[in-house]
């Protein structure tokens, strides 16, 4: 995402196009990455319910993976997973 120069800022501290938070790539904040073992996953979708950043990708009621562009690595999905299918791996080790 190209950030605007000061001359391109709107007057006042405002965001004029609502719902643009998805353009903000918060995945760069992450220090630990959730990694899914689909062999263990039972598609209960607890991770999808609890994820505060809508970063669990679901298709046809199945957990398909994680949106790493937005996932901040909070680890909630890993905590709530009843079958321990999600582990948190340090970004630097990948």
């Amino acid at each position: 995402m190209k950030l605007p120069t000061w001359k391109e800022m709107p007057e006042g501290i405002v965001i004029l196009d609502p719902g643009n938070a998805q353009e903000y790539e918060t995945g760069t904040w992450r220090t630990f990455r959730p990694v899914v073992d689909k062999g263990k996953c039972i598609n209960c979708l607890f991770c999808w319910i609890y994820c505060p950043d809508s970063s669990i990708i679901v298709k046809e009621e199945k957990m398909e993976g994680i949106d790493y562009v937005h996932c901040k690595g909070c680890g909630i999905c890993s905590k709530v997973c009843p079958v321990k299918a999600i582990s948190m791996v340090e970004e630097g080790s990948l």
Partner: protein
Amino acid sequence: MKTKNLIALEGNQAIALAMKQIDPDVVAAYPITPQTEIVQVFSEYVANGDVHTEFVTVESEHSAMSACIGASAAGARTMTATSSQGLALMWEMLYIASGARLPIVMTVVNRALSSPINIHCDHSDAMGARDSGWIQLWSESAQEAYDNLIQAIKIAESVNLPVMVNMDGFITSHAEEVIEPLEDEEVKNFIGEYKPLRSLLDIEHPFTIGPLALQDSYFEFKRSQAEAYRRVIPVVRSVAEEFAKITGRKYDLFETYKLEDAEIGLVVLNSTAGTAKEVIDNLRREGKRVGLLKPRLFRPLPVEEIKDTLSRLKVIGVMDRADTFGGFGGPLFTDIRSVLYDLPNRPIVTDYIYGLGGRDVTMEQIYKVFEGLEFIYKTGKVEDLISYVGVRE
């Protein structure tokens, strides 16, 4: 020629009258001495149905400014008034109003800050808000405060910045003065209908106001805000010209008094300028070439205009009704001195801190200041760069 409609009003009553004629959409205010009468008289106008204003009675000045910010963001023409501790309590909200570019207009009836507690005039309240991003207009008299308040609406809404209009507590706010108000219709036509840049009530165009802006955006927002102040000076001038057309009363960025051929000048804000003019008249009769510059627009500071006007002088005394504890003289002094620094033959500038906590400002004190300036003019020697006038030694 139209017959002059002259009435006797106290400064606060003149402000309340201007607010009635402006008829803002929202006023959120909390009473504090010496501003109380503004809120009191205006609330009578509300109760009597003389205005259509939604008057929000709040429990503090912090809430008053917060309510003003909400109302202004919703697209309402919004006003308030305060003094001293009330302005201090608004402090964090002042920056939010200016950063969000909300054209709120507020009268500040200047009063000393605690401690010790005091209810009388000095400028420490407004000077504390000097860097808050509010445009500051200053007024020598009730007439000037009334005229400034009406012009402030047009200035604020032209540049999307909040404006505070200052007048001296008690000296101006509670003294009865003959003033010449405008007709209601004239005020209405002069300020026109408010068309906000954007409104939170406009559900067709939703937007977010006041979001978090961290390392990647905060600086750009503040840089763009800094640029907005460049537009203020021409706007203040054109609004003043338009105002002069209907009233005959001429305003500019500052007023000069007998300064054209002066060698010694005084710079002072608000009501003390009136006393200084009398002193200058007397000194002129003795053949002394003395004059005055009274700033009207203090923020943004009209740097080039002040520099041009003061460049011809040899010695300048700045009178500050506020101190900057541990700083280098009063706030007006540091500005004026800095403005003149780049001149090849810059005048000598000294500072006189006076009138704190409503200490009476006498003509004798101002004669003494001019005496000191004359000594510097003759000898080129500055014994006290920063001194205190009217304090028991």
